[in-house]
C-alpha cells in the first residue's frame, strides 16, 4: 500500500514538473519563432494563459463518447511515457515505473494515445480531421524507421532493452552515447524532427489548409487537456533523448539545459523550413536518416 | 487582322443573312442577330471559325425600348480576335435558347442571368438557387428594381444617413449635364 502511495505521489510530482516545463517550452518556442521573424512575440508564459483560458470555457461540445474519451487517451500515453522514462539518474528522485523502463514497451505505449485520439477525432465526422489523421499516421511510418534503427543499434550494442541500463552504461564508461554511437544519434535526431511534428513535418495540423486537422472539432476543456498532454508528452520524449544520448541528468538544472538544447533542434530547424507534403516527408525519412540508422546498426554489430 | 476580319464577316454574312456586323476596335468584331439564330451562329463560330472560348454571357437592360440585349463574348486563340454576338429579346417575355450543350460553362452564366434579370433559358438545368439565396423579390439587376426602396423596406437603417445623396445628382451638379428623361422617373 505504501509503495502505491509513493508511486502515485511520484507520478503527480513528475506530472506537474513535466507540465510546467513542457508548457514553458511551448511558449519559448513561440517566443523564439517571433524573435527570428523580428517580432516581439508573446510572453514566455503565454501558453499557460492559453491552456487555462481553454479550460475556463463555460460551454463545451462533443460529438460522441469516443471524442469525449479521445483527450483522456492522449493523456494516458503522455503520462505513461513520463512514468517509464527515468527523469533523473540513479532514480534518486521518484523512480515511478522506470525500474522497468523498457524501450519496446515505450514505443508501443506511445502509439496507444495516438490511436485513441485518432478514434476520438474520427467520431467528430469532420473530413478535415480524418485527413489530418491519415497524414499523421502515414508520416509516423516514415520517422519510425530511422528511430527504430537507432534504438535497435543501441539495444544490440549494449545488449539491453532497458533505458536504465543504457544510462548506467554511459555512467560507467563516462562517455555519452551521442559520442560513442554517433550514427544512432544522428538518425534519432532526424527522426525527432518528424516525431515533434514541427515545421517541415507539420502537414497533419496545417491550420489554413485543413483547419488545424485532427483538433478541428476540439475546443474548450478538450483542447486544454490535449495541449497539456502534448506538453507532458513532449517533455517525456525530450527526457528520453537526454537519457539515451546525454547520459541522463542528475539535477534539475542539468535536466532543463539538456532538454532545452534538444528542444531547440526541431524548433530552429522548423523556423527556416517550409512544409513537406506527406509523401515527401515519408521519402525524406526513408532516405538519409535511415541510412544513418543503417550505419549505426553496422557499427553496433561490429562493436558488439 | 484586317483580312481576317473581312473573311470572318464574309463567311458569317453568307451563312446568316440576318447578321449585322459592327467593327469598331482593333481586335473586336460585333454581330447583331435575331434570337432564333443564336444557337446556330454560336455553333458555327465554335466549330468552323475556331472561336473555342466562351468568355462571358452578359445582358443589357434597354428599359425604354422594352428589350433585353443578351451579349455572348467569344474569343479565338488562333486569330486572337474577340467576337460579340448580340441579340435582343422581349423584356416582358424574356426567353432564349439554352446553349450549355455548346459550352458547359454557359450553364453558370445562364443561371446568373436567370436570377439577376429573369431571363428564361429553355431547358436550362439549374439544380438550386445560385447567387441569390432565398430571394423573393423581382430580379435585382433590372433597372426598374428600386434597390434603395427595397433596402429601406427590408433592412434596418441606422439613423444619421438621411442626407445621403444620389451620386447621379452630384455628378450632374458638377458637370452641368442634363438628366435623361428615363432616369428622372427613378430619381430618388
Amino acid at each position, binding site marked *: 500500500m505504501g509503495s502505491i502511495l509513493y508511486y502515485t505521489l511520484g507520478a503527480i510530482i513528475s506530472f506537474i514538473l513535466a507540465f510546467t516545463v513542457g508548457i514553458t517550452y511551448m511558449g519559448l518556442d513561440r517566443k523564439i519563432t517571433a524573435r527570428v521573424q523580428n517580432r516581439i512575440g508573446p510572453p514566455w508564459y503565454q501558453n499557460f494563459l492559453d491552456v487555462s483560458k481553454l479550460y475556463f470555457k463555460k460551454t463545451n461540445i462533443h460529438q460522441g463518447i469516443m471524442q469525449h474519451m479521445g483527450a483522456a487517451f492522449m493523456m494516458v500515453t503522455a503520462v505513461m511515457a513520463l512514468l517509464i522514462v527515468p527523469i533523473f539518474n540513479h532514480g534518486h528522485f521518484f523512480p515511478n515505473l522506470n525500474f522497468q523502463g523498457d524501450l519496446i514497451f515505450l514505443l508501443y505505449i506511445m502509439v496507444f494515445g495516438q490511436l485513441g485520439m485518432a478514434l476520438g477525432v474520427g467520431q467528430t465526422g469532420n473530413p478535415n480531421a480524418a485527413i489530418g489523421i491519415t497524414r499523421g499516421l502515414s508520416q509516423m511510418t516514415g520517422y519510425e524507421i530511422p528511430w527504430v534503427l537507432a534504438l535497435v543499434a543501441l539495444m544490440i550494442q549494449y545488449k539491453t532493452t532497458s533505458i536504465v541500463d543504457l544510462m548506467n552504461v554511459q555512467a560507467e564508461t563516462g562517455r555519452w552515447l551521442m559520442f560513442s554511437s554517433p550514427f544512432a544519434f544522428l538518425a534519432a535526431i532526424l527522426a525527432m524532427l518528424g516525431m515533434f511534428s514541427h515545421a517541415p513535418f507539420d502537414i497533419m495540423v496545417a491550420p489554413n489548409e485543413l483547419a488545424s486537422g485532427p483538433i478541428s472539432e476540439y475546443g474548450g476543456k478538450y483542447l486544454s487537456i490535449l495541449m497539456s498532454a502534448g506538453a507532458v508528452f513532449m517533455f517525456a520524449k525530450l527526457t528520453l533523448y537526454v537519457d539515451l544520448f546525454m547520459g541522463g541528468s542528475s539535477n534539475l538544472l542539468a535536466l532543463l539545459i539538456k532538454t532545452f538544447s534538444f528542444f531547440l533542434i526541431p524548433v530552429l530547424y522548423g523556423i527556416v523550413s517550409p512544409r513537406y507534403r506527406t509523401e515527401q516527408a515519408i521519402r525524406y525519412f526513408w532516405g538519409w536518416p535511415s541510412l544513418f540508422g543503417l550505419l549505426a546498426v553496422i557499427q553496433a554489430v561490429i562493436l558488439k | 487582322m484586317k483580312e481576317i476580319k473581312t473573311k470572318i464577316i464574309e463567311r458569317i454574312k453568307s451563312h446568316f443573312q440576318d447578321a449585322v456586323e459592327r467593327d469598331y476596335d482593333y481586335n473586336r468584331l460585333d454581330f447583331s442577330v435575331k434570337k432564333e439564330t443564336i444557337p446556330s451562329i454560336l455553333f458555327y463560330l465554335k466549330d468552323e471559325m475556331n472561336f473555342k472560348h466562351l468568355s462571358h454571357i452578359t445582358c443589357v437592360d434597354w428599359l425604354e425600348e422594352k428589350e433585353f440585349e443578351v451579349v455572348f463574348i467569344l474569343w479565338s486563340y488562333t486569330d486572337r480576335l474577340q467576337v460579340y454576338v448580340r441579340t435582343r429579346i422581349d423584356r416582358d417575355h424574356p426567353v432564349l435558347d439554352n446553349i450549355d450543350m455548346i459550352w458547359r460553362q454557359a450553364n453558370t452564366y445562364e443561371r446568373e442571368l436567370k436570377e439577376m434579370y429573369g431571363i428564361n433559358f429553355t431547358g436550362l438545368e439549374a439544380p438550386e438557387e445560385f447567387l441569390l*439565396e*432565398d430571394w423573393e423579390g423581382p430580379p435585382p439587376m433590372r433597372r426598374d428594381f428600386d434597390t434603395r426602396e427595397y433596402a429601406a423596406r427590408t433592412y*434596418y437603417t441606422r439613423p444619421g444617413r438621411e442626407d445621403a445623396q444620389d451620386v447621379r445628382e452630384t455628378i450632374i451638379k458638377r458637370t452641368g449635364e442634363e438628366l435623361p428623361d428615363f432616369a428622372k422617373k427613378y430619381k430618388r
Partner: protein
Amino acid sequence: MVFNDKNSQKIVDIIENYARKSSLWILAYGTGCGAIELPPTVTSRYDSERLGIHFGATPRQADVLLITGYLTTKTLKRVIRVYEQMQDPKYVIGFGSCTINGGMYWDSYNTINALDRYLPVDVYINGCMPRPEAVLAGFAKLQKLIQAGKADGANKYKENLDWYRTNQKKVIPNWRMPEYNW
C-alpha cells in the same frame, strides 16, 4: 467550481478574466474587404501575438469573431452559424463602417446595414478600412471590457434570442438553420 464566498468568487473571476483577455483567438473567417488588414496586424510590423492575439482555425477553438466588412444576407447566414458554433465566452468585433451603418453599401439590395441587430457586438472599430493601429486599439478596448467582466455579448444573445432571431429571420426568409441547443 463552487465558491460560496463572494470574495473568493471575485478572485476566481479576476484570474479567469485575466486568462481570457490575454489569450484571444481570432476566428479566421474573412468577410468583406477588411480581412486584408489582418495580415499586417499579426505579422512583424504590428505583431498582435505579443498581446496574445492570434488566429484559431475553427469556431470550436476561437474566442473572437471578427466581422471584417459588409455582410450580405448570404454571408450573414454562415456567420450566424459560425457564431453559434463557438463556445462561451465569445466576443464579436464589428470591423469597419459597413458593419456600423452599411457604409458605402448602405442602399444595396443584399447587404445588412447594422450588425448589432443580428449578432451581439462587443466592440465596433470605425474606419473604411480601419488601419492595424485602430484594430489593435479595438482589441485593447475589448481586453479592458473582458477584464472588467463587461464583455458579455454571448449572454446578451442568449437572453434576447427571440429578438435576434426575429431580426435574423426577417432578412433570411427561408430559415433552414439547425436549432441552436444551449
